[in-house]
């Protein structure tokens, strides 16, 4: 009998939504025309790109001309950081797409300041006081993620962008983990730039978008043709753009239902974990300032990497914030930034549920943890 596979690593990537695939197929077959061509083969692809842009804009409360297609979140982040000017203030627990782009800019002489998240109980957030304290003259851009990819905390972006604007800087948020999962409104958030990646919300891989507020100037990252209003060159990935818009639209329509479903699953999972491991430690805030379906949990005394591999052998996919090779143990920059102890960091796994997960999946995870605790002698 084959074992039931349970995918609980949705923060890494999500399954492609069938409706998105269906919408993509014509543009991978008969409607293969280049949307920039001036003959009739361009007509449908061009209309599809235009419609997708309008759909995405509606989902985040932007104007269609403020949406620019990219190859994903990494390109969108790099574009903002490398296309902007002045000093930069970034949080120390950003995704590497932001941190490494900022480090590259620092190598070119740009002033980069790092702000750390709040630590300790209820920590994991970037608070306006922290941002104000870290401020330095000459900061032209602030980049703080909407939701953290390892601990799932959701930052108060509207407060942070307000502070940045009052001090004369532009504000960028990497919303890769949040778009399609929690309400995103670029007007309410007050951001000038927002990055997103389709494969995190059941769209295809290799496509994303950047919101650039009207009137805000950004130098192109890629030079070439005149696509994307002349600031992002490269023939449009029509099928993926259509797939991304379809997935986002459906996820936004189902958002309330998905959030309620994931909150139920999360409660059940936490309850099951607490019964097996009474000393489990949860990272991140919980409640409304946490991504739905997101659990970052530490089992002190266990080795997270071993636990991950044992769960994988049982057909369950989760993730860790620390990884070992034969000689070294590397703790992620996020767990370091939130200042957890080495023991906690090395015993933390990330379980991220998606809308397609079921109560049976959650019970399967709990059952596997119970078996591993008993037979593999995991500490209680």
């Amino acid at each position: 009998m084959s074992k039931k596979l349970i995918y609980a690593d949705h923060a890494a990537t999500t399954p492609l939504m069938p409706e998105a695939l269906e919408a993509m197929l014509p543009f991978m077959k008969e409607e293969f025309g280049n949307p920039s061509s001036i003959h009739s083969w361009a007509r449908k692809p061009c209309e599809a790109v235009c419609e997708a842009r309008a759909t995405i804009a509606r989902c985040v409360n932007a104007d269609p001309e403020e949406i620019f297609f990219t190859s994903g979140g990494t390109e969108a982040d790099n574009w903002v950081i490398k296309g902007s000017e002045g000093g930069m203030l970034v949080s120390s627990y950003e995704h590497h797409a932001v941190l490494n782009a900022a480090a590259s800019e620092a190598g070119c002489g740009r002033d980069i300041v790092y702000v750390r998240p709040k630590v300790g109980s209820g920590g994991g957030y970037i608070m306006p006081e922290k941002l104000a304290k870290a401020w330095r003259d000459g900061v032209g851009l602030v980049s703080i993620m909407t939701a953290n990819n390892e601990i799932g905390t959701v930052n108060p972006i509207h407060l942070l962008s307000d502070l940045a604007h009052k001090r004369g800087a532009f504000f960028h948020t990497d919303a890769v983990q949040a778009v399609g999962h929690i309400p995103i409104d670029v007007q309410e958030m007050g951001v000038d730039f927002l990055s997103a990646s389709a494969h995190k919300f059941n769209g295809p891989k290799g496509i994303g978008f950047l919101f650039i507020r009207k009137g805000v100037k950004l130098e192109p990252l890629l030079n070439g043709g005149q696509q994307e209003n002349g600031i992002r060159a490269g023939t449009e990935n029509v099928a993926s753009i259509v797939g991304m818009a379809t997935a986002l639209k459906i996820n936004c329509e189902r958002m309330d239902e998905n959030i309620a479903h994931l909150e139920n699953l999360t409660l059940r999972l936490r309850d099951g974990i607490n019964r097996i491991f009474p000393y489990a430690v949860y990272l991140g805030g919980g409640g409304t300032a946490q991504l739905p379906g997101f659990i970052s949990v530490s089992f002190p005394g266990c080795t997270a990497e071993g636990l991950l591999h044992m769960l994988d052998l049982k057909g369950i996919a989760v993730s860790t914030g620390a990884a070992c090779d034969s000689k070294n143990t590397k703790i992620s920059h996020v767990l370091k930034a939130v200042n957890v102890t080495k023991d906690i960091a090395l015993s933390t796994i990330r379980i991220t549920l998606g809308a397609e997960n079921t109560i049976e999946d959650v019970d399967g995870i709990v059952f596997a943890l119970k078996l591993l605790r008993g037979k593999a002698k995991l500490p209680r």
Partner: protein
Amino acid sequence: MATPKECQYCHAELSRDEIGLSKKLFESETKKGKYSCMPCIAAMLEVTQDDLIAKIEEFKRQGCKLFG
């Protein structure tokens, strides 16, 4: 020459891959000098030995130096 390691349960002599797998899965146990052979690990985790072999191949592909 170092004494060959044996399985903590059935005392079978262990291969390099079994030692590596014990280290990957049960680090705290191996720190106490306790290792397990493939059949005992499979029984403990209620998986097949083929599952374990596939996992070992995955570690090798990832470049883990613990395996032969």
